């Protein structure tokens, strides 16, 4: 049992920290790739910018300018700084629900990116700056894991993290594999950059060796059972935490949330991996992303914004 508003805030902390981490990683990979002036480098920049939803950015800004704006622009609702500020604002509203250790990690990152000296730090070493944000967000998640009770509040935090992750990785895969107009990605450099953007390069190499092929990447990021950023892994966690949170709800509405999550999990668990065609991934990805959106809506209906009339004591 916890306040509905608190569950909502914890859920959004999860979403925003995951978003910030993903954006930081995308920016970092993009900046690194565009140090070379090759076609592959501009392909990587296109992927990164499309994946964050900035279609028209390459016309006006250099990759560096785009990354700077993505990192520090407080006006931009999608920037890393905005996501971190919102995560922390939510954390402040539920300060009594998260441990001091967890709060301190998040507060520290926030103070660093909103420091007036942040833009200078970015200019001095963008890669180090972004790397530190990612590392600190890992510390935040680690502190949460090690110090918070793994009860209901924890589940909402993780629901936010995994739902956001599923949507972000899904979007990235869509950009790379679901567009039938573009020819398939084949360039080795672009493919490793894609793996880096999903933090998947090393686990991929261990699983498939240095044989880097688009079909295997898609298979890995969609269906790997153990890799924490694969769609299969994330949807399994969504199902696990949603079922855990719904356990306490006596109201009948809880069943629909569980059903949605269970179906999504099964869809990826029992997918026909062997016969997966590269350009056939689009339909499945669309379905998965739609179902993620439906789960988000159901979380609200079940736990947060439920109609009062249904829950009044008799």
């Amino acid at each position: 049992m916890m306040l509905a508003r608190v569950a909502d805030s914890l859920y959004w902390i999860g979403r925003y920290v995951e978003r910030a981490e993903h954006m930081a990683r995308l920016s970092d990979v993009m900046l690194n790739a565009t140090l070379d002036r090759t076609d592959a480098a501009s392909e990587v920049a296109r992927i990164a910018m499309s994946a964050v939803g900035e279609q028209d950015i390459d016309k006006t800004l250099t990759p560096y300018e785009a990354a700077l704006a993505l990192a520090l622009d407080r006006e931009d609702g999608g920037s890393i700084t905005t996501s971190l500020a919102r995560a922390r604002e939510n954390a402040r509203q539920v300060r009594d629900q998260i441990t001091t250790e967890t709060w301190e990690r998040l507060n520290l990152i926030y103070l660093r990116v909103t420091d007036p000296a942040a833009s200078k730090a970015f200019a001095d070493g963008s890669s180090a700056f972004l790397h530190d944000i990612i590392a600190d967000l890992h510390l935040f998640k680690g502190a949460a894991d090690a110090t918070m009770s793994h009860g209901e509040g924890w589940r909402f935090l993780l629901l936010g993290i995994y739902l956001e992750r599923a949507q972000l990785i899904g979007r990235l895969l869509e950009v790379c594999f679901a567009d039938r107009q573009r020819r398939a990605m084949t360039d080795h450099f672009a493919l490793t950059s894609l793996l880096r953007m999903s933090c998947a390069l090393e686990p991929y190499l261990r699983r498939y060796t240095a044989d880097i092929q688009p079909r295997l990447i898609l298979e890995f990021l969609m269906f790997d059972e153990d890799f924490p950023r694969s769609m299969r892994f994330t949807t399994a966690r969504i199902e696990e935490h949603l079922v855990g949170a719904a356990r306490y709800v006596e109201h009948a509405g809880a069943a629909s949330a569980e059903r949605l999550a269970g179906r999504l999990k099964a869809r990826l668990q029992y997918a026909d991996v062997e016969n997966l065609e590269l350009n056939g991934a689009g339909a499945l990805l669309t379905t998965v992303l739609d179902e993620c959106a439906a789960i988000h809506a159901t979380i609200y209906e079940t736990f947060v914004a439920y109609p009062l009339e249904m829950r009044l004591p008799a």
Partner: protein
Amino acid sequence: MATARRTDEADLERPGAPYDEMITAAGGVRPHYAALAQRVQTLSEADLAERQKTLERFFLLQGITFTVYGGESSTERIIPTDLLPRIIPAAEWAKIEAGLTQRLRALNMFLADIYGEQQILMDGVVPRELVLCAPSYRREMQNLYVPHQAYANVCGSDLIRQPDGAFAVLEDNLRVPSGVSYMLANREASKRTFPGTFRAAGVRSVDRYPDLLLATLKSMAADWRPNPQVVVLTPGVYNSAYYEHAYLARLMGAPLVEGRDLVVHDNMVYMRTTTGLRRIDVIYRRVDDDFIDPLTFRRDSGLGVAGLFNAYRAGNVVICNAPGTGVADDKAVYAYVPEIIRYYLGEDAILPNIETFLCREPAQMNHVLANLDKLVVKAVGASGGYGMLIGPHASKKERADFAEAIKADPENYIAQPTIQLSTAPCLIDGAIDPRHVDLRPFILSGEKIVVTPGALTRVALKKGSLVVNSSQGGGSKDTWVLTADALGKEAQP
């Protein structure tokens, strides 16, 4: 009087000079400060600056901040915190404790009386219209049962130390007093800053405040609710004391709720949880009377809960502090507190008031008019420095204008001598310099009255200033209340 204080001849020779907490007028260090003074002497200016920086970082990391809005962005600042603790010996504290306990007991009895039989008004001890016409008097509270007669469950009284070394009460805060989180955070910080001196000094612990608060709140719940649900009601994250609300909620393990989380149905109060509605028994509200229920008090309030007061009247929920306690810390009622104590308890007040002249009494008004150049005159209903005349600093014309205003509406004015606050050593720009301080201890009253052995010491950081409010450049420092056997121990560096 003060049994513990070593009376220094020189103090008496210089009646106008403020009392210094560490240094006697003769220039010596008071014995309870000796260990700290020694320790500080071994630290270089750089050491002190380093410790100050660590201290500030601790506050920043914990998020103990308030937001300053301005220009394009808002920044968060910490409330200035001073490195050096203020130290109070056991015997002095014993008197403060006894005095505060006595005072709060009498004030609770006073509240129970005026919201009940009104015996004290009938006996003419306190003028009837003074109480019943005060804006803070809540007619809605009349004849409403309050368990243990504990109206002000949390009280934060402001004490000052006068030039003669005796403590006096400047103000009682019986509404929604704040600052206790700073008392606790300052303690955390000073344990890190002076661990050795702290250990050797024998400082009484304040750590139990949160559980004592919880016990106090639970003792207010109805007997038939065996495991009462306690919540902290905050105006929200933009309130300047939000940190404190969250801090207390976290340390009590009570949900921190906002008005929008609560629902009243059938005169019961519920909170919206993930699993449905859950009944609430006790609300520790950090929202002013005016805003707790738009149906009963201010209609434009978005912070409160519609129907909350009716649920309270029905006995289905307890609001702490009770609404209407403000009438007992009103500026004019303040002057009667010694009488109130004598009336209910048959005792003299242990802690004196600041001498206060009520212009409503003709003799006192004449005294005020004759001494306008020496007094501070305050309008009873006003606060925050409005409607105030500081006699010694006013022009002849201002005094003449004020005299007319007093004659026209004497009941609206009180006057007090210009007060003097004691000073305590503070670290200012790397050097140690005395600054004026006051003292805000916290008293809990439920089934019984408990004074926490510690306090918030507020500091006027500007040299010579007497303004300790955090909104106007005030800061705070830790307050060490020593155990009885503490004096005379060697301090570990």
